């Protein structure tokens, strides 16, 4: 009888499994946004949990600790976004008005001509004619300003998602230990201790990775700001220095690609601010290497920051917390980027870390199945 029962049970389980997979597939488009919100909320909880625990230790109230933490986080994000938006719009407007001035256009044209003439002959035909280029740039900047309104709509949906993520984060932070206890309750006795080990190891791995990355990002931001100020002392004429530093730090959260993304705003602003300045155009790095608009200086500065981060900061603060091979990191990033874009690249490595920990635990359990 029991011999007959087992295959039947297995067929029953497979059918139930297929029904569940089918159901998730059908409802996924409707729930995907909520799932993304919850994943984000869990990641923020992991980062903020030690701070809330620390506050709770000091003021002896979980609710008050979560409230203080939420106010601080919202204040910091609001100040940063508000200040960044106003400064960015100011910078774009200035650039737009500069573009409308004739000397500026002739400067841009002469720079483009110089740059093209320095190229080998076969490449010159590929580059569009300078007149077209400035027209295009003028058109694109005014188009960008017009697009700001439609951009406001996208901001609205972003704000809604952000508010929901904050609400979820607050709820999870407040009842974190209670949620974990409720989750553990569903583990069968046989897998109870192994389940606890798994949850603990995932928590440890993800939180140490995220905190390490955050510390590394902070150090990259601070070092970039210092570096940009040093370049300004040599006449680089860079504005929005603090924001460029913070963007470089945030971009650093995406492994491999991030550092190059972080460089882009600094190069763009150096170009925008210094166009028409012949001293900046003729600038040479260490008096030898031509570096128009301090572009080579900026690249070198970011490379130095990356070297300091990669060799001294990241190994100390991130360490072997996730411990993935660089090739695997690259593959995981490509998969994450293809599936979810930049957000996918940001979460690819911690997600791979979770899969690795789960895999290790499954391997451990299968090796020691007699212990269950």
């Amino acid at each position, binding site marked *: 009888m029991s011999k007959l029962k087992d295959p039947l049970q297995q067929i029953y389980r497979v059918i139930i499994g297929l029904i569940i997979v089918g159901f998730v597939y059908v409802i996924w488009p409707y729930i995907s946004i909520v799932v993304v919100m919850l994943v984000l909320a869990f990641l923020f909880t992991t980062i903020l949990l030690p701070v809330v625990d620390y506050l709770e*230790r000091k003021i002896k109230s979980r609710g008050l600790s979560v409230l203080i933490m939420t106010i601080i986080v919202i204040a910091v994000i609001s100040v940063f976004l508000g200040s960044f938006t106003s400064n960015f719009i100011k910078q774009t407007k200035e650039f737009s008005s500069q573009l409308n001035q004739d000397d500026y256009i002739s400067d841009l044209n002469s720079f483009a001509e110089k740059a093209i003439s320095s190229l080998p002959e076969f490449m010159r035909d590929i580059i569009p004619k300078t007149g077209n280029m400035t027209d295009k740039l003028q058109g694109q900047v005014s188009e960008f300003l017009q697009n700001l309104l439609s951009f406001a709509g996208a901001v609205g949906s972003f704000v809604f998602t952000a508010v929901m993520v904050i609400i979820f984060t607050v709820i999870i932070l407040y009842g974190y*230990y209670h949620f974990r*206890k409720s989750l553990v309750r569903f583990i069968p006795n046989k897998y*109870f*201790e192994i389940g606890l080990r798994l*949850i603990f190891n995932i928590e440890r791995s993800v939180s140490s990775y995220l905190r390490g990355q955050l510390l590394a990002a902070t150090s990259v931001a601070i070092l970039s700001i210092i570096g940009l100020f040093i370049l300004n002392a040599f006449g680089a004429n860079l504005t929005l220095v603090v924001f460029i530093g913070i963007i470089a730090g945030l971009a650093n959260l995406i492994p491999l690609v991030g550092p190059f993304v972080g460089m882009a705003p600094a190069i763009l602003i150096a170009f925008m601010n210094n166009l028409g300045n012949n001293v900046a155009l003729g600038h040479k790095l260490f008096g030898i290497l031509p570096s128009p608009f301090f572009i080579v200086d900026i690249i070198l500065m970011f490379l130095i920051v990356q070297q300091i981060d990669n060799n001294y900061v990241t190994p100390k603060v991130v360490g072997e917390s996730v411990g993935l091979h660089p090739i695997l990191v690259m593959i995981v990033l490509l998969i994450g980027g293809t599936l979810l874009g930049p957000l996918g690249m940001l979460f690819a490595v911690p997600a791979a870390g979770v899969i690795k920990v789960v895999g290790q635990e499954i391997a451990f359990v299968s090796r020691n199945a*007699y212990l269950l």
Partner: protein
Amino acid sequence: MENAFWGNIFKGWRKEENPTVLTLKQVPIFKGFSNKQYREIENLIHERTYKPNEYVFKKKAPGVGMYIILSGKVEIFIEEADGKKQTLAELKEGDFFGELSLLDEEVRSASALAKEHSTLLGFFRPDLFSLLERNPELGNKILLNLARVIGARLRKTNELLTESQAAE
């Protein structure tokens, strides 16, 4: 409907009547705490029920924490090389076991099996560590009590060893 005049409408007002807290108070590791501290420990404790002859854990499995018996009986035993079972202890309501796993990640030195329908309270290392972060005063009290329990077991082991050496 309960009669408000004669019925005990005050039942449940005394928090210490909670069976989990009452059991915790009997365990040396959780002795001497305030009611607020007991409530905090209660939030960290996992209540598990086991059927008769169900393993709580097996020897050589990695240990994660300790168990306190709320009700029922648990047998602690080892299997010798010839497969013979050697019972080390039979524990009942209020007893506790596996406390060394709160301190290290070593494997279990014996197996634990529920002898009858049992309800156990589990207190685990990750929860102790998080408690030490959030409420070091309470976490340290537990650690100090744990050290006392381990010290008492060591002293007892020492006595037994001395007696057995004297008998030889």
